[in-house]
């Protein structure tokens, strides 16, 4: 009977103030969508990092006037370096072939590049890509080297963009969360005011504090959960629309988003939504319903 009473009070409470409830749910769901997007992006960047950094190469381009002795000295230095996992050598002809293959859709551009304009190079995979700096310092000084280029620095620019998007999503999530918290607090105050007579009688006859507070807290939790489910649906739909359809071209760069990760957002968002609402409601009641 007590459970039935509490649940009934929750439903009545949500309905009594339905515009406020809707506002609360919308802000909550937008905030949680942003939070979910941010977490997904974080997981994604992490996954992409381990994928790309595993395949990363350091390119050592040789000067066009490099001598045979210099080339051998460089080869020797690379092969004996303990940081190196494997090395390949690319001649000018191979470089040109690869270039032509890569740009085969723009024959004009290919024609403008002569066989001697591309440098020969060593391609090196490091055992630990993080140690690029040490490796570069050791190799840079050798005669005949034009440039040492780490793909990592290029990738990092891409990842920086992802990080910025992720931080942006977190900031939006935070601002919306603040709005949601204020709305929860306000809704609870209105609910407590409209039930002030009941609350006064309950206190008078000695109803326990949890029994007085439970309907209010649950009201906020239910709204939080609905917000979380809507947020999850928004997240799932945008994943399908954006990545599986509209931005499919990007999937060459992006590693595919794991559906398991997306599903993981449901308990996460529901948990965050419920706990945050409950705590806010409870704190509001501490101020509003002194015993």
């Amino acid at each position, binding site marked *: *009977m*007590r459970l039935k*009473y509490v649940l009934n009070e929750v439903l009545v409470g949500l309905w009594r103030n339905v515009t406020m409830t809707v506002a609360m749910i919308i802000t909550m769901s937008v905030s949680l969508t942003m939070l979910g997007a941010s977490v997904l992006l974080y997981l994604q960047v992490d996954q992409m990092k381990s994928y790309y950094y595993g395949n990363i190469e350091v390119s050592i381009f040789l000067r066009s006037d490099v001598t045979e002795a210099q080339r051998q000295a460089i080869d020797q230095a690379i092969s004996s370096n303990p940081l190196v996992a494997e090395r390949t050598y690319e001649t000018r002809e191979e470089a040109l072939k690869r270039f032509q293959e890569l740009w085969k859709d723009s024959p004009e551009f290919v024609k403008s590049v002569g066989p001697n304009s591309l440098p020969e190079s060593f391609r090196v995979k490091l055992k630990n890509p993080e140690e690029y700096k040490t490796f570069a310092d050791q190799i840079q000084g050798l005669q005949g080297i034009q440039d040492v280029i780490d793909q990592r620095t290029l990738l990092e620019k891409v990842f920086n963009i992802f990080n910025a998007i992720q931080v942006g999503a977190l900031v939006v999530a935070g601002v919306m969360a603040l709005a949601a918290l204020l709305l929860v607090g306000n809704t609870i105050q209105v609910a407590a005011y409209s039930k002030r*007579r*009941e609350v*006064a*009688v*309950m*206190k*008078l*006859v*000695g*109803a*326990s*504090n949890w*029994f*007085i507070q439970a309907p209010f807290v649950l009201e906020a939790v239910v709204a939080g959960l609905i917000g979380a489910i809507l947020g999850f649906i928004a997240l799932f739909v945008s994943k399908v629309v954006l990545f599986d359809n509209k931005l499919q071209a990007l999937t060459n760069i992006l590693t595919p988003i794991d559906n398991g990760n997306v599903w993981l957002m449901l308990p996460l968002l529901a948990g965050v939504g419920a706990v945050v609402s409950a705590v806010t409601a409870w704190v509001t009641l501490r101020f509003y319903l002194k*015993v």
Partner: protein
Amino acid sequence: MIQLENVTKTYPKASRPSLDDVSVGIEKGEFVFFIGPSGSGKSTIIKLLLHEVSPTRGKVMVNAKDVTTLRSWKVPHFRRSIGCVFQDFRLLPNRTAYENVAFALEVIGKTKAVARRVVPEVLELVGLGGKEHRYPHELSGGEQQRVAVARAFVNRPLILLADEPTGNLDPDTSIEIMRLLDRINRTGTTVVMVTHDSNIVNQMRRRVIEIESGRIVRDQARGVYG
């Protein structure tokens, strides 16, 4: 049953204490009037006994428990041993007489079955048999106060506190409410009533404690308003 020991209560920002070094003892089964002019501090006693406020100094014992040191989470349970009636009835307007009384039972965890057994009985006791399903606005002032008394008494408290229960009622209705409180007192319930209704005090001839400016100026076994 109730023991105030050197109780002083000064509200924040008040220039003088509402109760000033008050000591008084009330035995089980007594019927006591606290009388005195407005602002004399008599209502503060009710608030102290309900643990709505804490004394600035001194000790408040109710039912052999020190209320002063009661932890806040134990207050609800403590209040279940005390019934309370007010001048303004404090009924829920959207509930019938029966529902108002049953509500008090249900929110402290009693089942509907218990309510169905106990509520008609207590409504009968206060003289509202047949009016269980009326809403407060369909009842007279005296009848509303009877509902409030039923609600206060339904849990068979050891103590019934009444804060000017006849303040809103005409003299005849007041007498009827007093008869009801007297009947409840005869079941062994200690009744503490705050009032400035001289007519009633003079008719009842019960213990009278007079308070003036926060101090007890008279404590008389079968007193009159004076």
